[in-house]
């Protein structure tokens, strides 16, 4: 047997729960089994960004709290010398990265098993987040191409604005797997007010 279980696979049955209103203004879904890589390196080093950009096709964001998309990979700013690469499971990326950056001072850590992504969307997702998140998530400040690390319901999370979801604007919440169950239950509780739909984990 080679069955894989995502951190939130417990929530597999398609459930629809209804909140206080008859409307379903929010949906939640796990984006399971994505590849998460933590990449650190010195952007001041002349070759570091160049190798990533030209040989590998990864353009790292240098502005704090922004995301850049190249090919299938989202690169999120985590710190002045630290990024999170999110994309489809691949053996190719780490191998190309290691080959390209060989001899340079860098660190590449595979975090795929250690964290997961909860996607929240629907017209009321900002209100749901607003019940605990202290950041200003208004579209005026939190728009396409933005991300932010913060503490949400006692969990350290990375929030990534998702512009390209086929169901409209959404938000990806990257969270450690041990906090994922707690955070999803917390989000379900918070979303009860606006009414929500819980989808099967998307793999």
């Amino acid at each position, binding site marked *: 047997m080679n069955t894989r279980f995502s951190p939130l696979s417990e929530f597999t049955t398609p459930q629809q729960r209804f909140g206080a209103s008859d409307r379903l203004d929010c949906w939640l879904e796990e984006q399971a089994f994505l590849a998460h890589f933590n990449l650190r390196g010195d952007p001041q080093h002349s070759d570091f960004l160049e190798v990533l950009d030209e040989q590998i096709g990864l353009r790292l964001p240098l502005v704090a709290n922004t995301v850049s998309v190249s090919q299938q990979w989202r690169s999120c700013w985590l710190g002045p010398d630290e990024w999170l690469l999110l994309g489809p499971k691949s053996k190719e990326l780490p191998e190309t990265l290691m080959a390209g950056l060989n001899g340079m001072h860098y660190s590449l850590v595979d975090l795929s098993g250690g964290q997961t992504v909860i996607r929240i969307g629907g017209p009321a997702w900002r209100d749901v987040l607003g019940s605990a998140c*202290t950041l200003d998530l208004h579209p005026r400040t939190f728009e396409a191409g933005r991300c932010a690390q913060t503490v949400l319901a006692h969990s350290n999370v990375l929030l990534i604005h998702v512009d390209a979801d086929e169901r409209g604007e959404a938000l990806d919440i990257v969270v450690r797997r041990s906090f994922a169950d707690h955070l999803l239950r917390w989000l379900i509780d918070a979303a009860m007010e606006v009414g929500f739909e819980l989808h099967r984990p998307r793999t």
Partner: protein
Amino acid sequence: MLQIDCPWCGSRDQDEFQCGGEAHIVRPATPEDLSDAQWADYLFNRANTKGAHAEQWCHSGGCRRWFNIVRDTVSYKISSVYQAGASPPQEKP
């Protein structure tokens, strides 16, 4: 609650930060030459300033970077934020 301007992430709630105590304490270059009293002074004794106080903070709920701030210990007003390793800004007369 304090609002602290992380030099990288911008203004965030104090909840996201951890305070690392007084800034600019230099570790003695040759600890083996110190007396116990001098070593204890380095380890434990702090200025206990009333007024402008330079402190280290870490944005542990965000970018996880250390930086320094100058905070008034009476009014809690933060007068400046600067990078770790930089010297404290001169006080305005």
